[in-house]
């Protein structure tokens, strides 16, 4: 009897140990026989931007523990496909069999951390283009990709931005479109409803995500001038037509006039002329001069660049318009060299956008 009580006391102490090691990451579902769920993350020195997988590991013991190994299962995981999850769980299960008769709760969790750390890379293809997420080119460069913080689904940055812009455009198109055949009369309101829900849902699992995830990618891509250039080249004829279409023109004019109005009323905080450039800073396009004929051609080309990549967000368009009325060719000459040098400075941003939403001090 005394031996049994002693054994129970030992097991209870083991649970306490697990709680003190994992803190809030360890939930005790039952004290005895122990049943715990531990939030296991790969070792990334607390840098969530480097984290691509995670697991809520369930360990449920019987009253015969530790003689009888516990049941190990996945409560929830992110970034792990079925194969990797099966491998992970069976590895931990095997470890549990090896260790039978010994206290093993913390050891099993550490085993999970170890395996997760080895698996900590995004796997498989981009769900949007179906090409591998991480594909080293011959010259060692790879397409940038991003992950949604809510579900850890990863996409090529270009792919997710293309989709996001499509959604924004789609919304406006739908509002304009006139009535079509309906299968039921009430349907129009239902349709609008579902469209607005479309926003910010992961294309893979439809989990709601924070639009910040997208904004960070936009900033990242926006800061990279070479990327802009290559995107412009990729535009096919139709897309160029769209950029020069009447609706696009009138939209730009509308924002230009709005901007002028705001400027007249002193409603704008304008960028300083002697702007110094800090690493990771977002810089509006330098002022340009539509007066000189030569300036016009340059203008057109950069107009394309900005519009094609910045989407239809009114805020973005405003920054395009910002540069227009303030025509000053001297200014442009002074700023242009900075713009091309911006690229290397863009890098540090990458670290910021993947931070978890919690610590706002990062922003």
């Amino acid at each position: 009897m005394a031996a049994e009580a002693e054994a129970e006391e030992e097991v209870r102490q083991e649970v306490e140990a697990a709680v003190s090691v994992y803190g809030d990451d360890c939930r005790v579902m039952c004290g005895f026989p122990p049943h715990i769920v531990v939030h296991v993350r790969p070792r990334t020195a607390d840098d969530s931007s480097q984290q691509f997988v995670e697991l809520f590991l369930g360990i449920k013991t019987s009253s015969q523990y530790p003689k009888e190994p516990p049941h190990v299962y996945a409560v929830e995981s992110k970034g792990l496909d079925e194969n990797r999850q099966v491998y992970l769980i069976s590895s931990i299960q095997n470890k549990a069999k090896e260790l039978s008769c010994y206290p093993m709760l913390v050891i099993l969790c550490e085993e999970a951390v170890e395996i997760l750390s080895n698996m900590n890379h995004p796997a498989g293809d981009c769900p949007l283009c179906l090409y591998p997420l991480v594909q080293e080119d011959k010259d060692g460069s790879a397409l940038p990709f991003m992950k949604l913080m809510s579900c850890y689904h990863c996409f090529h940055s270009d792919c997710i931005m293309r989709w996001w812009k499509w959604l924004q455009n789609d919304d406006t198109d739908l509002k304009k479109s006139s009535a079509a055949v309906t299968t039921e009369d009430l349907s129009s309101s239902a349709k609008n409803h579902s469209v607005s829900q479309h926003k910010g849902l992961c294309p893979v699992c439809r989990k709601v995500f924070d639009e910040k995830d997208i904004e960070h990618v936009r900033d990242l891509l926006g800061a990279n001038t070479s990327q802009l250039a290559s995107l412009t080249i990729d535009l096919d004829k139709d897309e160029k037509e769209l950029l020069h279409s009447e609706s696009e023109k009138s939209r730009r004019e509308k924002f230009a006039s709005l901007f002028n109005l705001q400027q007249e009323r002193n409603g704008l905080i304008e960028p300083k002329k002697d702007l110094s450039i800090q690493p990771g800073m977002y810089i509006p396009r330098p002022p340009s001069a539509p007066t000189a004929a030569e300036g016009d051609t340059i203008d057109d080309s950069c107009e394309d660049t900005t519009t094609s990549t910045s989407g239809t967000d009114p805020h973005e368009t405003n920054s395009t318009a910002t540069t227009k009325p303030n025509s000053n060719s001297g200014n442009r000459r002074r700023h242009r060299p900075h713009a091309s040098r911006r690229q290397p400075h863009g890098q540090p941003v990458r670290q910021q956008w993947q931070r978890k939403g919690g610590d706002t001090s990062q922003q």
Partner: protein
Amino acid sequence: MTSSSSPSRKALSKIACNRLQKELAEWQMSPPSGFKYRVSDNLQRWVIEVTGAAGTLYAGETYQLQVDFPEHYPMEAPQVIFLNPAPMHPHIYSNGHICLDILYDSWSPAMTVSSVCISILSMLSSSPAKQRPQDNDRYVRNCRNGRSPKETRWWFHDDKV
């Protein structure tokens, strides 16, 4: 009926082409069971043969699905219809139009031809009775002149079938 008329549409974008070639390669490696697609030179229109699953109302019957890809696939959903004769099903109109949310409002670019096919087969398999939708005649009348089902504002009646 609508099956023969194709919507006037632009050629596939480069991105759509790349994506479809990838899907085609994967389909050839492992086609979804119950489906046959013989590769044609037209990447933009796939005609796929569906065989009803064993133990369902459509066991052994074959139907043809026509999948047309828009210029901006996969941002935009493909247009999927049954060629004549369309299976008798409470969500399939006699002109081949299919009332299935993922083909319209709930389309996501992470879906593929293969996943759409599987959804359609599962919709067939769970059918309780071989019958047309209640508003079949009215709807088909409104769809004359080869209107695409994507122009319809669908009202998804129920999620049981």
